[in-house]
């Protein structure tokens, strides 16, 4: 579809001068807009024109043309303002809201203050019909929303039928049920790849997938309709560039995690819970389904779709994961996706992408880890919030018409998700690099913990796309923990005890929720240890610390047991935690004991036989490391190891070996499940054998 768009742009750019020879000779009136071009996109038309010196804004007029060319009543459908785009020298406006397939004529005029200047010469064009050839099976599928011209949103059963029909007609698409709502509606996901999607979640994870969460608030349905259309495009497009991208990755589209809320037209789910305040706590089956999907399919990038009520904001408010526990690289890359890509591409295509919370005094877009944007960031996923401005507002004065309003929102979301796919394809190396850094830096458990508080987002250099940057939202002192613990210890009751939060009959234990996030837990004699030396370190205290703002349970903070130098052999029984330590001598971890090592230097072999768990991150080990028959997790992340390294006979949980440099051999055998690296490769100079041959 990208090359098709490009071709259309070239034609349209050349068209006006050729199409209207009579007007070429006419002298331009003073301050008359010149050089108007109209380029058709999916559900929108990009108008571009030459800037008029001194203009304070521009009005965009659209007139429907009947089949015989008779014009209807002209309507001012848009107002271009300087805060609309980051590049004011080449003004553009994405006109949208019209029913696809209609023929129109457009004109643009400048205003100086409130004084209107002459209109440009008109340019006419036929807008694109609903995507897909009506005569080609599969392509001719339409959603209820398309079929009713926006009068109705796509119902739950229509979504199921439509997505099943796409699955049936396209090898590229597999619809999987990732969970059920409180009222037992299926929560489906479209898994899309070319020529077909990988068969298992593990195989999908290996393709650097991207995800779109389309509808968490049931009364904000605009993004969901875009997702359903995009799924059809990806399933049936013949565009070689799109297929090229789709051949290298997997697109994960979750149309409706809140099917109950969508059916009831409520923000919350059927219990009234706002699901976008539940992505860390996962009290609800809907959020748990999404958390398990993220754990199993491991998207590296995401978008989360919403609608927003402020009429004065841009078309497309966006925001990165801002929580200060999110790895810097994940934040930076998310910002690059928004400011580096969406703002620039928005300026080209005429959509007004802007920072969420961009009106002065706004108090939205903060650091709650319960919000998917932040939760995903804490899970090392580059991502953004997307809002669709609910009403037309002053810049789209023709949206009192509900269908116009709904179409503008949905096609602006379709534009965004399509651009997201392109950004992902063009930046997959950078995205995976920051993911790798996120996994290793979080596993290092280094630096302070912030319970709530955001990274600052500077105002975009003028002309900035909005009125103001998002609120600062810095952490207050009582929300900062300078010395991170080594781990949290939960009692049996805390870990497995019955909970009262969540809907009756669907309640889950802390153990189940921790498992849904995919955290590593060590069973010890007096409870359960959750070490911070793992990839979602920034999220763990937000749920398990007594100081957390919306915690799950107040676990006991376990402080490091050794931070200095130890000369001679070290034998570990019970739980030992080495942080920034130097050990000169062999370490022996006894049966049933747990060792957690972060930021340390060990000169001597490390041997763990029948241990409860072994965590070594951000450390240097001169000497062999052997974990044999470990009953719980083995986590080796971001280390420099002389080797040899051997992990064998592990039980219950997959050993994690990621981002290590191993000078010698790496051997794994007899672990069930087999070791993983979460796609973060190890550098092994010696031979890699057995279950670790691919790590």
């Amino acid at each position, binding site marked *: 579809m990208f090359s098709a768009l490009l071709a259309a742009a070239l034609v349209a750019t050349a068209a006006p001068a050729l199409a209207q020879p009579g007007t070429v000779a006419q002298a331009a009136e003073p301050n008359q807009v010149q050089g108007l071009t109209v380029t058709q996109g999916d559900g929108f038309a990009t108008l571009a024109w030459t800037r008029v010196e001194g203009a304070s804004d521009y009005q965009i007029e659209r007139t429907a043309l*009947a*089949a015989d060319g008779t014009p209807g009543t002209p309507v001012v459908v848009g107002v271009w303002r300087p805060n609309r785009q980051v590049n004011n020298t080449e003004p553009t406006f994405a006109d949208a809201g019209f*029913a*696809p*397939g*209609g*023929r129109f004529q457009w004109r643009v005029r400048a205003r100086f203050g409130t004084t209107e200047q002459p209109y440009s010469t008109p340019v006419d064009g036929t807008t694109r*019909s*609903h995507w*897909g050839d*009506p*005569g080609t099976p599969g392509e*001719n*599928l*339409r959603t*209820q929303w*398309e*079929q*009713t*011209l*926006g*009068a*109705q*949103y796509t*119902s*739950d*059963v*229509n979504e*199921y*039928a*439509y997505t099943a*029909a796409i699955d049936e007609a396209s090898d590229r698409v597999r619809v999987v049920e990732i969970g059920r709502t409180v009222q*037992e*509606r299926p929560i489906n996901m479209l898994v899309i790849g070319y020529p077909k999607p990988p068969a298992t979640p593990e195989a999908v994870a290996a393709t650097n997938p991207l995800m779109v969460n389309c509808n968490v608030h049931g*009364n904000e349905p605009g993004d969901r309709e875009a997702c359903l259309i995009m799924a059809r495009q990806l399933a049936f497009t013949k565009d070689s560039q799109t297929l090229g991208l789709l051949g290298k990755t997997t697109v994960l589209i979750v149309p409706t995690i809140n099917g109950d809320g969508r*059916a*009831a*037209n*409520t*923000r*919350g789910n*059927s219990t*009234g819970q*706002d699901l*976008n305040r539940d992505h860390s706590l996962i009290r609800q089956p809907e959020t748990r389904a999404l958390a398990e999907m993220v754990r199993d399919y491991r998207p590296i990038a995401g978008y989360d779709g*919403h609608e*927003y*009520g*402020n009429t004065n904001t841009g078309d497309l408010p966006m925001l990165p994961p801002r929580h200060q526990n999110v790895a810097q690289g994940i934040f930076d890359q998310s910002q690059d996706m928004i400011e580096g890509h969406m703002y620039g591409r928005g300026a080209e295509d005429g959509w007004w992408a802007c920072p969420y919370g961009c009106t002065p005094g706004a108090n*939205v*877009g903060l650091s709650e880890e319960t*919000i998917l*944007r932040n939760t995903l960031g804490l899970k090392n996923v580059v991502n953004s*919030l997307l*809002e669709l401005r609910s009403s037309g507002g002053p810049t789209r004065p023709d949206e*009192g*018409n*509900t*269908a116009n309003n*709904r179409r503008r929102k949905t096609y602006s979301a379709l534009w965004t998700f399509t651009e997201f796919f392109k950004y992902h394809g063009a930046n997959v190396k950078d995205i995976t690099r920051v993911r790798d850094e996120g996994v290793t830096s979080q596993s290092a458990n280094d630096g302070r913990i912030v319970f709530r508080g955001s990274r600052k987002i500077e105002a975009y250099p003028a002309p900035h796309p909005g009125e103001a940057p998002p609120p600062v939202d810095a952490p207050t002192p009582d929300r900062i923990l300078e010395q991170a613990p080594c781990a949290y210890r939960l009692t049996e009751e805390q870990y497995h005890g019955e909970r009262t939060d969540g809907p009756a009959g669907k309640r889950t234990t802390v153990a189940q929720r921790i498992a849904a996030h995919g955290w590593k837990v060590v069973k010890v004699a007096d409870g359960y240890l959750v070490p911070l030396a793992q990839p979602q370190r920034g999220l763990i205290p937000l749920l398990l610390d007594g100081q957390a703002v919306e915690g799950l349970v107040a676990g006991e903070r376990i402080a490091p047991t050794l931070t200095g130098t130890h000369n001679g052999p070290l034998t570990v029984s019970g739980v030992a935690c080495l942080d920034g330590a130097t050990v000169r001598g062999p370490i022996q971890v006894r049966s049933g004991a747990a060792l957690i090592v972060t930021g340390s230097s060990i000169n001597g072999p490390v041997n763990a036989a029948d241990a409860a768990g072994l965590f070594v991150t951000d450390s240097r080990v001169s000497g062999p490391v052997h974990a044999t028959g470990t009953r719980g997790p083995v986590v080796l992340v971001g280390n420099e190891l002389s080797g040899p390294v051997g992990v064998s006979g592990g039980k219950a949980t997959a050993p994690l070996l990621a981002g290590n440099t191993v000078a010698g051999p790496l051997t794994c055998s007899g672990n069930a499940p087999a070791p993983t690296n979460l796609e973060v490769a190890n550098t092994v100079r010696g031979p890699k054998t057995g279950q670790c041959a691919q790590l």
Partner: protein
Amino acid sequence: MPDTLVPGPRPGPASRAARRRRAATGAALALLLAVTGCGGPAEEERAGAQPTGSAAPGAVAGPLCDALPSGAEPGSPASLVGRPPAEALAWIPVLTMFEAAVRATGMAEELAAAGGLTILAPTDDAFRATFSTANLDRLLLSDTETLRRLLREHLVDGARSAAELVAAGSVTTRAGTTLTVTAAGSGARLADKAVTVCADYRAAGARVHVIDKVLGDLPHTADEEDQHH
């Protein structure tokens, strides 16, 4: 439980044959497939965008009517004539809150009561101007008794046109409230508060008047802070 799919509206004149073909296939899949044959969706949509004049049996009046489906478009007044009231509501795009409230309270049958009914249906904007999102969620999900009373503040026995309401001077709602009715342009003003913004949709045994304010006396909560995002 999934809700049932509302079937397509009755055809407008421009695409009657096409829509009859679609209706004949029945079931949810019918809505999926683009109309094929000589037309194709683009042609159908363009035809739909053109008003077909006032000959339609469903003449509606009010300032909002121009912004709602008309002519041969799905959800046009003509297409809703004779549809069960609860179904007609699902086709008027500014009534998503009211329509959801009818389903939440299980009042579809009450709307189709013998003897006819006048439905004064507030727009989504009216609901949002009255209630916070949290309050709406509460009404729709847990406080359905209150919601049912609220809906009955908007129901009047007998299918009456706006002109008949004005002529009556006052009406009593099914909640027992008496509303004074005065003329407001071509429509009606109710209880000195709400006006009809698109009056006189004809459903089966019912008149639907879209109004711009929520009636009844529930506390105004729209100013309470709502969460976004």
